[in-house]
């Protein structure tokens, strides 16, 4: 059964090769069929694997030895177990839907770019699968950088626009910063354990000192920061919205950005044994959640809002990881994948309809033009806001509950964040769909519902984000209803054994759910009421709202603190040190020789008298040197 594993990444790879090489010859429809078909195929295989795992557990299968030196060996091995199979389903499933969606969304592109697009998308899925399937950190790292590359390529897909290119480069470089941390962690593992395979690592944890574990986990978390856009490395994600919307949906909402969560969940044992790091993760996650939410309040670009909400949601997931609710985190990854993908696709269809207008202040009243988009978008908003019984509610609730159990402060801040979430989401909703149309007339004339390739994924995802939560019903409602937890149990068993799984009393939990839900509903009504009668005006924001609109000036700060100094240093080295310093010295030696040559020439005065004079003096000196035992005084005393 596990032989099939190879097929999962193989199909996208083939899709990539075919589309990539044949992008000039193949027709658009064929390209889209190949692109989506390959993903569908691997989705089917993933399903098979999933049930295989469900029945008879995880397996590790090695293809060949990637690196084999005498100090360690890195096999090119795939590991299919509960965790990875879940992610396989998410990636391939949502991936397929988004491919389908893209086939319509990217229609205007000319064939070769169309082919390029699908090639990149398939390559992304391939590397994402590599990341998830890898049985050791090195293979994971390969996928890890691979997805980074694809996001780079896709953000800069419209490469004529240089801002997009800068955004792409920024994304790649920031990911690289994280990757360095990841790499160092891997080196550390190899140094201490001589292996990077999950199984061996977790088996030999006893060999590691607590300092080692803390360091390794911290370094790994640095990697996660980069990939999953946590403070301080999050600023690339909003800019990444430069890419086509389906890309944002797939990469920057559903799959890639959750790689960090996957990695930490994968190495949960390490983290459980490093409480310090866990606290760090929790704090960073929470901070990111709040911070991003505040920024999202004042964004006017529909995709930017979603982007910051993604960052914030990721923050929640890290909070979950930090407080030991690994299942909750994975659960939230899943639900978030549903509704956030849905939101992005909805936004995409809106943008599509509005002819690439992204400013929500220029929208409004789209309800009647885009019924399907509207309804699905609304459901997604409810889901992300955490209204029971939509999916977001369950996952977020589970995380918050665990947070409360760990430390109530986490909980209250978390709830505050979710209130903000509800507010900006419904602000977005209201500005976009409610009220009356604020765009130009010819825009209004052209507004239309999207074709079925786009609406179908919307509907499917809407359904998922409505019902998706039911695989994780908390224990308080029904015994053993949390099927996900049971499914994932083998992965986290060890951690649970160490940390212990503490459920709250039912009453307390009901109280929390109720309270938060009520508060959220209030916020929602406030937001809708406030923004459905919004009038577009050019007046400049002031005070805090301006600061929020300008994202707390974080980008500017990074520029002044890091980027410019480095550039300056480079310039200093290039123009001063290199030219005048080192090379100057080298050339200086040459110049010195030339100069002394010019001086020594003058010794050759051409006067025989001088020549002989120097000879005589030389002889005298020689004799003196030779009989250096004669001190000058005795020398004179000898004469007379």
């Amino acid at each position, binding site marked *: 059964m596990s032989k099939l594993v190879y097929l999962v990444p193989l199909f996208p790879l083939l899709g990539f090769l075919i589309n990539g090489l044949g992008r000039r010859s193949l027709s658009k429809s064929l390209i889209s069929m190949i692109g989506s078909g390959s993903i569908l195929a691997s989705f089917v295989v993933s399903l098979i694997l999933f049930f295989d795992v469900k029945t008879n557990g995880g397996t590790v299968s090695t293809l*060949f*030895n*990637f*690196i*084999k*030196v*005498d*100090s*360690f060996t890195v096999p090119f091995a795939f590991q299919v177990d509960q965790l990875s199979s879940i992610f396989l389903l998410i990636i391939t499933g949502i991936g397929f839907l988004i491919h389908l969606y893209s086939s319509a969304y990217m229609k205007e592109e000319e064939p*070769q770019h169309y082919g390029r697009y699908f090639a990149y998308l398939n390559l992304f899925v391939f590397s994402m699968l590599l990341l998830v399937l890898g049985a050791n950190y*090195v293979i994971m*790292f*390969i996928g890890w*950088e*691979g997805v980074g*590359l694809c996001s*780079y390529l896709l953000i*800069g897909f419209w*490469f*004529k*626009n*240089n801002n997009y*290119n*800068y955004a*792409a*480069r920024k994304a*790649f*470089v920031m990911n*690289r*910063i994280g990757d*360095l941390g990841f*790499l*160092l962690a891997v*080196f*550390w593992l*190899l*140094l201490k354990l001589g292996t990077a395979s999950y199984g061996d690592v977790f088996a030999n944890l006893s060999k590691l000192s607590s300092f080692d574990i803390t360091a390794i986990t911290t370094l790994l978390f640095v990697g996660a920061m980069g990939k999953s856009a946590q403070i301080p490395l999050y600023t690339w994600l909003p800019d990444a919205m430069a890419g086509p919307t389906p890309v944002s949906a797939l990469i920057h909402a559903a799959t890639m950005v959750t790689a960090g969560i996957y990695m930490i969940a994968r190495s949960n044992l390490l983290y459980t044994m490093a409480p310090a790091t866990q606290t760090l993760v929790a704090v960073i996650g929470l901070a990111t959640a709040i911070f991003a939410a505040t920024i999202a309040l004042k964004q006017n670009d529909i995709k930017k809002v979603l982007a910051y909400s993604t960052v914030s949601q990721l923050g929640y997931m890290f909070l979950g990881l930090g407080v030991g609710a690994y299942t909750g985190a994975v659960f939230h990854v899943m639900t978030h994948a549903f509704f956030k993908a849905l939101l992005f696709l909805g936004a995409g269809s809106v943008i599509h309809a509005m002819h690439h207008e992204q400013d929500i202040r220029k929208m409004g009243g789209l309800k009647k033009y885009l019924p399907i988009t509207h309804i699905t978008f609304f459901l997604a908003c409810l889901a992300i806001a955490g209204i029971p019984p939509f999916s977001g509610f369950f996952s977020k609730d589970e995380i918050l509950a665990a947070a409360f159990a760990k430390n109530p402060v986490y909980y209250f801040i978390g709830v505050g964040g979710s209130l903000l979430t509800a507010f900006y989401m419904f602000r977005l909703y209201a500005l976009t769909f409610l009220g009356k149309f604020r765009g130009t007339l010819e825009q209004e004339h052209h507004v239309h519902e999207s074709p079925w390739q786009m609406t179908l994924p919307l509907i499917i995802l809407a359904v998922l984000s409505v019902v998706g939560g039911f695989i994780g019903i908390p224990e308080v409602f029904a015994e053993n209803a949390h099927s996900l937890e049971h499914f994932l149990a083998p992965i986290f068993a060890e951690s649970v054994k160490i940390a212990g799984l503490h459920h709250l009393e039912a009453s307390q939990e009901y109280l929390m759910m109720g309270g938060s839900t009520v508060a959220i509903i209030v916020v929602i009504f406030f937001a809708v009421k406030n923004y459905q009668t919004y009038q577009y005006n050019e007046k400049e924001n002031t005070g805090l709202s301006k600061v929020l609109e300008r994202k707390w000036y974080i980008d500017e700060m990074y520029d002044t603190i890091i980027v410019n100094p*480095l*550039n300056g*240093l*480079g*310039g200093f*080295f*290039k123009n001063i*040190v*290199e030219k005048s310093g*080192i*090379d100057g010295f*080298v*050339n200086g030696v*040459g110049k010195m020789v030339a100069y002394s040559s010019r001086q020594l020439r003058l010794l050759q005065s051409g006067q025989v008298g001088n020549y002989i004079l120097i000879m005589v003096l030389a002889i005298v000196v020689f004799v003196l040197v030779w009989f250096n035992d004669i001190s000058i005084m005795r020398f004179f005393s000898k004469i007379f």
Partner: protein
Amino acid sequence: MIPVLLILIPLFTGLVAFFLKESASVKGWALLSSVISLLVVLAGVFFYPKHQLAFDISWLPDLGSRFSLQMDGMGKMLCLLTAVSFPLIFVATYRNTYKNAGSFYALMLLTQAGLTGVFVATDALLFYFFWELALVPVYFLCSLWGGEKRIAVTFKFFIYTFIGSLLMLVGILYLYFHTPDHSFALQSFYHIQLDAKAEACIFWLFFIAFAIKMPIFPFHTWQPDAYEQSPTAVTMVLSGIMVKMGIFAVIRWLLPVFPNASLQFNNLIIILSVTGMLYASLIAIRQDDIKRLIAYSSIAHIGLMSAAMFAHNSTGLQGVMIQMFNHGINVIGLWIIADVIEQQLGTRKFSELGGLAQKAPVLAILLVIMALANIALPLTNSFVGEFLMFTGLFQYNAWMAAVAGISVILAAVYTLNMVQKILYGHTVIITEKTSDINRNVQFVLVVLVIIVLFLGMYPQPMIDLTKESVSAVMVNR
């Protein structure tokens, strides 16, 4: 017998080429010769048993020097690199026209002979001979066919390296008189016992020679100018192969011969190398000239190699071994692209370029892949090398590895910046009416890309090829 052939084939074909007047014929001749030596190398690497790869006859009996050659794993790999590079270079630059091409290709082939000799010589004096034999033709190549500042630059390069090799000669002499059996043979060099002070002095005599060749910061200033001014075919040889002479020499002649001194000074040298990495990377960020950028990035990569060499563990050394090959391949690819751009667009400043991806998609794809190989992205060949080298460096000292790691980030910055400036954005006047790259270049680059990706996904063959050399060095510690 194989190594002798490897030296004689280019030597004689080169001497013949001097007398070929007609340009096309000499190009064909050179290509033929290089292909033949490629076949010979392949035969040597894959088919022939060990004893076939050694050669030893009396040369200067009264000086205790023998004409003895030996292809061990590292030698095989580097000969392979040399033999692979030259045909590719010849094909890639086939369209370039040189005035009196006969001498050009002749000198190129002589250089090949010298390089191969360096990689297979196991007699110190012979090694020195080939070391110089590789240098002199390059001097003429650069000075005759280079850019406008060529004479001064090449001369600086020559004197710089010549000083180094003379110091090495003194060192060789000293060692010779301290060998137990007064011979230049590598093995007897390995058995020298020196007192600490002498060992330190001679160590530096050797090290400076190799450091200049590699080059290690702060001995590097000849390099960017030389790369910029030389004809690209020569630049490929310089940066692709000749730089490896220094690294090879350190592994073959320095580490095993001066075990104590290299342990004594490795901290200093690693600090130098790491400094050089960051220094070069930061300069590369500010470069606007493709060739200079590649030059500085190459300095950074070499810095990593030298740091890993002196980290004194087999992992790092193994990484260096395979990275020698990989870096050669990658940098040659980059040079080819740089050359194509310069030939077609007449400029190397990428601030003047842009939007090339629309005009030359094939070039764009190949350039992107090469650039990714340059920043050691996984599944490209240099990832494995750098991974191993960093692991080795990390074993030596975690902080060093961390600091050196910064250069990986910087590498991404400048490489992608170059890619973006050249390929993306709107087309400008220069790039407005350019066509895509011609067949030869396309062929060469595709071959290189295939090597890059293959070794990136399945590096084990290279590792196995060089394993024995690594263990040999580690044993001699």
